[in-house]
């Protein structure tokens, strides 16, 4: 049984049945606070930047260029990149292009389950402004409305080479301490949730999964 917090700063979890309410936490997410000593934080960021574990969830067509990334030709392992099958072990979520509404629900769940600090790279045109499917009834157009994105890579499909460049860019950003996507998510949690619930009509999961 998970501890239920007091009512003033908790989530409603209105999508859950009474029975399920007991099984999930209603706590709000907490923002990441850097270490008070800058050198320690810098070291931590250096370490984070060099062990980017990617969640192996190809959410769209982009997945097809993620696979060659791990082969000898592009060898992403040398950048400390490795694929992990579970969000619990991953720190980078690569949104592989378009997100259908059904997948968006899983993306939100997976993203919230990832341990912080966590980063999101959006691949391709579709997360930027709808791309190829700007008029589709089942794909979202502006991905940043639902999940904070740290880095966008345009292209359809972006090639593995530019993915490598993107990963290096992300590393630089992390080392500089500028990857605050997860904190933005926490700070604007209600805004993100409202956007998410606007498109996901059968919200039958907790408001925050962790």
């Amino acid at each position: 049984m998970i501890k239920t917090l007091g009512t003033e700063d908790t989530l409603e979890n209105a999508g859950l049945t009474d029975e399920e309410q007991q099984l999930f936490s209603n706590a709000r997410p907490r923002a990441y606070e850097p270490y008070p000593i800058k050198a320690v934080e810098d070291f931590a960021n250096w370490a984070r930047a060099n062990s980017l574990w990617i969640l192996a969830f190809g959410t769209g067509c982009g997945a097809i260029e993620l696979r060659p990334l791990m082969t000898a030709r592009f060898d992403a392992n040398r950048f400390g990149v490795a694929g992990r099958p579970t969000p619990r072990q991953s720190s980078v979520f690569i949104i592989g292009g378009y997100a259908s509404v059904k997948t968006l629900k899983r993306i939100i769940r997976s993203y919230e389950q990832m341990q912080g600090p966590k980063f999101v790279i959006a691949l391709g045109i579709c997360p930027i402004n709808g791309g190829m499917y700007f008029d589709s009834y089942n794909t979202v157009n502006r991905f940043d409305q639902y999940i904070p994105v740290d880095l966008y890579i345009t292209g359809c499909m972006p090639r593995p080479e530019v993915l490598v460049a993107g990963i290096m860019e992300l590393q630089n950003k992390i080392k500089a301490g500028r990857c605050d996507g997860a904190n933005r998510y926490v700070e604007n949690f209600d805004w993100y949730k409202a956007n998410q619930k606007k498109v996901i009509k059968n919200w039958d999961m907790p408001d925050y999964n962790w």
Partner: protein
Amino acid sequence: MTLSTGHSAALDFAQPEPPDLSSGKYVKLWQGPQHPGITGNMSLELVLDGDTIVSCKTHVGYLHRGFEKLMERRSFIQNFTVVCRIAVPEPTFNEYLYSHAVEEISGIEVPERAIWLRTMNLELMRLASFLMWIGGQSGAFGQYTVPNWTLAYRDYVLDLFEEMTGARIYHMYIVPGGVRAGLPDGFEERAREIMKGAEKLLDQIERVMFNNVVFKARSKGLGIITPDMVDPYGIVGPNARACGLARDIRKDEPYLAYDRLDFETISGNEADAYGRAYLRLQETRQSINLIRQCLDHAPTDGPFQADMPNVLHWKVPAGETYVKAECTRGEYGYYMVTDGSEFVRRVHVRGPSYTHAIAVMERLAVGTNIADIAGLMVSLHTYPPEIER
């Protein structure tokens, strides 16, 4: 060999009664949608008794973009850029079938050179797709060496595509009326070199993967498809050929230049995961052979595009057609209805995974060990985006 493929009354494809989950005897497990073993997102709702599957339900729709709706509001030329997105590992089959359907309805004759270039493009695609599949099949059984080989080598085939078409994944090369360009200089030599390497790689794979005792042990006897299942379940392509049916659209109802290419339909007699995998390995080799033949025969000059009307306001006459081609997974088809306007009335895309991943998968999964389910899924060569489009 004559096989009975008729519908026997004994075959019962009624939905099984759902197991009583409240009995505490069963465990319900969701596999997917983010399962790393397959190309594309699809989830299986499995009910387990111990580690044996007693019921399986396929859930799709994670990649649904509503292509058929989108195509109804795009002009005929615009659609050709959309269709290739339907199946990411094999975009060119979509391009070809869409173009062919439009050409058939509007009576456009494609020039000879375009026919050969199209054939070559499709066979290169088959090679790339099979290389990826071999890696997937091997990876699903826990061998991570072969996928790294094949995917890395697939990249060389993608390089060929990049040269030929200008893009790695979404080639958008086959347009209604022909193709977009001829071959670049020196393409033939590079292609032949890559074919040579691919052949060598396949020999190594045969040794390392197909002779591997673990692979053999896990894949033999897994997911057996019997000939009498084929038609009732709508099984096509290598899945059907592996159980002895020599059905190949390239041979039976030749399209493009296939009637001028020298090849035989390959069929096997072991319809388990191993048999299917081996058959696909053979077909990969055959594909290399066909690419070489295309390189030999393809004309190097002459027009590669038919005379086209102004595509900005191209009205295709009212008509209806169904065109199909043999993709790596079997019969891929486009059903198109036009009404004389600038937009298509209806396109239905028939992907072979539609049956393989749902009806067939749900049946074959029952009784399988949970550890083999990914291997089984890959061995049917399912590709979810073509189911939900």
